[in-house]
């Protein structure tokens, strides 16, 4: 596999056309730094610390000034005494007429890339008192926004007249060079401050065009292997199930029952790696086996539990947690304990101490939080690691990992019941007898079956689960585990994870969310990762909807925001279709189409469109509009191309279109045209249209 380097005169002399050296150089250059873990609090904290030091320095008298020299004993002691009285006079004059820094400096506590709550005012801080009228008349804001000003000392609070900034928007607040102090000292040069607002709430559950709410039900039950003692887990693609046989064999079998094989013998514990493959303990060692069967030794010591933190394998050995291969523990449980339950993301672990107390341990810091209530059985983590479930007081309780918000979501549930928590927020609970399902908020409790379903384990984000019955491994599907309402959220989570991987520049992670058709849509180009200049900085949802009846799809329009340094300069919209893989039950991205790249800051921009309310379409924009331009510039047409009669109301950057004639399940087209203008007369930056299916 030979690769040529792009021309670099720097390297010609070094490599002298040596193809081997060029090949290794190409490998080095083809790699990119993976996005490192970054604590935003560290970034903003360091900035604060630096600016504090910088401000202190700028206000500190310079060393070696005539003043400090004057007081240096003993040579000028008399001179110092002589001028003392003069200085005293100066001091009082200064009290009455304080000196301010010679340079006017304006800062803000908002960061260009750290989103603030849209209801929060934009705060500008000056290093000295300013002439209010001069500053206020010097301010311009993009996107166009009507604001009011409030001064608090040297701080200026800028509040939109509608009390809310637009969500998902980077504001450019420019203070012109003429902004001045009461004495006429000006800013000197214009200063632009970037303020990013937080996203709007994520897409709400939306009924399908013809909603048919169904209670979940178990379907497609099939026995896969016998005998089996414990389900280890599903492969990330849900194609393979790993389990332990009663004789200690670690076995694998296809989800369709094919390809049964033994991976290793005398295995005491095992866990499926998020990257694929299995890490297991056997004969006092920890080893890993890849999907293609390659075996590697991770540690020559026995582990009590194996779990993962991103791509790192962690091992619980006694009271210590080690990274695989590491010599020093990354965390330690500092008291005797009886049971431990690591979080799926590997950042926390809950243990039960010898006295029965339940304790949350942060693995990234030595912080521990003891629960107020006691627990006895298994503690099950939600897939997102934000909640846990456990049985206590005869019911199933759900709480945050610190145990502070326990709520009973189902009862009666016996002690020792087993719980599996799906990525679509459905909890399976083993009952006596049978199996029940309930959402984490306690809604939708359903007794699914009276049959035995031991040790249920969900398949990733799918609706399939594996279980044990009478010593055999089986799988089944919960027919409406996604539910008509939840599916849209589950799809949005999938698309969010996919987009987050792209923002991080992690092509491998991003590709895992695509089916073959989705991979085709992104192949052969640089569309998956936008790493040039401008680069992909963030994303947000513009619209989301369930596909029409008979096409079990979810459709999302996602906006990719492109930035140069910290300034957002352009965007493009991608339409992403999500469907459920029929073989595996997984939600995957099936197709994607991208619109043209458009500049930001060139007029009002459509931020999002809500098509989830029957008879209504709401268009949200980033700018305050000239309301006289709304009529006639937002139109609806039917599939036959004929205009639909509508009524429009404009308020707070939102245009609500009401059309009583919309037929549920029918296709319509929304168009926002360039006659629409903001309060400064700037027309819509780009015409916008959206095909959607009306809901009923």
């Amino acid at each position: 596999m030979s690769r040529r380097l792009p021309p670099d005169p720097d390297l010609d002399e070094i490599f002298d056309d040596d193809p081997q050296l060029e090949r290794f150089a190409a490998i080095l250059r083809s790699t990119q730094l993976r996005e490192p873990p970054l604590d935003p609090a560290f970034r903003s904290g360091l900035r604060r610390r630096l600016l504090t030091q910088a401000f202190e320095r700028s206000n500190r008298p310079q060393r070696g000034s005539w003043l400090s020299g004057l007081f240096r004993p003993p040579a000028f002691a008399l001179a110092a005494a002589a001028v003392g009285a003069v200085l005293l006079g100066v001091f009082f004059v200064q009290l009455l007429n304080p000196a301010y820094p010679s340079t006017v400096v304006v800062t803000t506590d908002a960061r260009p890339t750290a989103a603030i709550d849209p209801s929060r005012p934009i705060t500008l801080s000056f290093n000295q008192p300013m002439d209010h009228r001069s500053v206020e008349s010097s301010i311009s804001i993009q996107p166009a926004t009507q604001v009011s000003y409030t001064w608090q000392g040297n701080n200026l609070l800028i509040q939109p007249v509608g009390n809310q900034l637009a969500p998902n928007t980077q504001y450019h607040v420019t203070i012109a060079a003429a902004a001045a102090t009461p004495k006429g000292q000006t800013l000197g040069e214009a200063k632009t401050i970037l303020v990013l607002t937080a996203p709007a709430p994520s897409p709400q559950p939306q009924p399908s065009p013809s909603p048919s709410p169904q209670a979940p039900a178990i379907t497609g039950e099939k026995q896969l292997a016998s005998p089996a003692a414990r389900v280890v887990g599903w492969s990330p693609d849900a194609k393979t199930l790993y389990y332990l046989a009663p004789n200690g064999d670690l076995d694998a079998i296809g989800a369709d029952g094919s390809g049964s094989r033994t991976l290793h013998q005398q295995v005491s514990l095992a866990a499926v790696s998020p990257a694929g493959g299995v890490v297991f303990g056997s004969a006092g060692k920890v080893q890993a086996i890849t999907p293609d069967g390659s075996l590697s030794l991770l540690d020559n010591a026995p582990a009590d539990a194996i779990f993962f933190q991103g791509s790192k394998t962690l091992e619980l050995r006694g009271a210590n947690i080690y990274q695989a291969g590491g010599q020093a523990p990354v965390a330690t449980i500092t008291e005797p304990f009886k049971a431990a339950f690591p979080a799926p993301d590997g950042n926390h672990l809950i243990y039960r101490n010898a006295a029965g107390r339940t304790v949350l341990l942060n693995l990234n810091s030595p912080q521990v939080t003891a629960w107020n209530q006691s627990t006895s059985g298994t503690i099950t983590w939600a897939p997102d690691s934000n909640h846990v479930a456990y049985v206590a007081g005869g019911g199933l309780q759900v709480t945050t990992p610190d145990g502070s918000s326990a709520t009973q979501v189902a009862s009666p549930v016996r002690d020792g019941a087993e719980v599996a928590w799906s990525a679509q927020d459905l909890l399976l609970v083993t009952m006596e007898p049978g199996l029940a399902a309930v959402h984490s908020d306690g809604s939708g409790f359903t007794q699914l079956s009276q049959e035995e379903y031991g040790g249920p384990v969900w398949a990733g984000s799918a609706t399939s689960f594996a279980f044990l019955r009478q010593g055999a491994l089986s799988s089944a599907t919960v027919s409406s585990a996604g539910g008509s309402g939840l599916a849209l959220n589950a799809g949005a989570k999938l698309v969010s994870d996919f987009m987050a991987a792209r923002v991080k520049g992690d092509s491998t992670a991003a590709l895992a969310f695509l089916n073959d058709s989705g991979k085709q849509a992104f192949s052969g180009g640089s569309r998956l990762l936008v790493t040039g200049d401008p680069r992909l900085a963030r994303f947000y949802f513009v619209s989301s909807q369930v596909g029409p009846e008979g096409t079990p799809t979810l459709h999302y329009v996602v906006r990719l925001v492109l930035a140069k340094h910290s300034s957002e300069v352009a965007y493009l919209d991608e339409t992403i279709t999500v469907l459920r893989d029929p073989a595996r039950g997984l939600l995957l991205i099936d197709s994607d189409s991208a619109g043209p790249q458009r500049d930001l800051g060139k007029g009002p921009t459509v931020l999002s469109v809500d098509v989830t309310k029957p008879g209504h379409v709401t268009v949200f924009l980033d700018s305050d509009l000239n309301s006289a331009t709304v009529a006639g510039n937002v139109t609806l047409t039917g599939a036959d191309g004929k205009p639909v009669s509508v009524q429009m109301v404009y308020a707070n950057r939102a245009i609500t279109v009401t059309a009583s004639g919309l037929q549920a399940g029918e296709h319509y087209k929304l168009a926002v045209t360039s006659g629409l203008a903001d309060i400064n007369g700037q027309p819509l930056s780009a015409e916008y249209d959206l095909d959607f299916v009306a809901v009923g």
Partner: protein
Amino acid sequence: MSSRALPDERSLVERAKTDPGAFGELYDRYFHQMYRFVFSRMRDQTAAEDVTSEVFIKALKGIPRYQDTGRPFVAWLYQIAVNTVADRYRSSRPTVDIDEVHDIGTAGPSLEDLAVRRDEVRQVWAIVEKLPAPQRTAIVLKFQEDMKITDIAAVMGKTEGAVKLLIHRGMTRIRGTLVPGAAR
């Protein structure tokens, strides 16, 4: 980092000598690049945070004496970062796998190709980490940070010829390790 210092950057750096707000802008502009570079060297979040803090505090202290030599300002930051990392490197070795830090940056190849390339990348970078410090620094700045030889020379306090020699020796050692029979 292939472009020269831009006029607006020059004026920003000049202002940053006395204006905290301008220093804040420089921080916003280069924090991520520095943090990423430092993390790639330290491979530990806490250590990367410590070193990045040290880099910017040194930059704040040193900026009144900074002289524009026509090279990008960020080269000066790299100079501070390389020295700070070297100080830390002596006392603590990185703890995170190479795989955690580098990734394949292109889109499109099949998953099988990606797996093969990932293995190659891992091997080559693992050898880079074992190179003598000057060779390692020169190669990292050239291939990971995409810097010009002239800027690397300024960062490392060496001549351009010396930097080229370091890169050549490092690359030859990589070949010697990965290609049996090849000259080291």
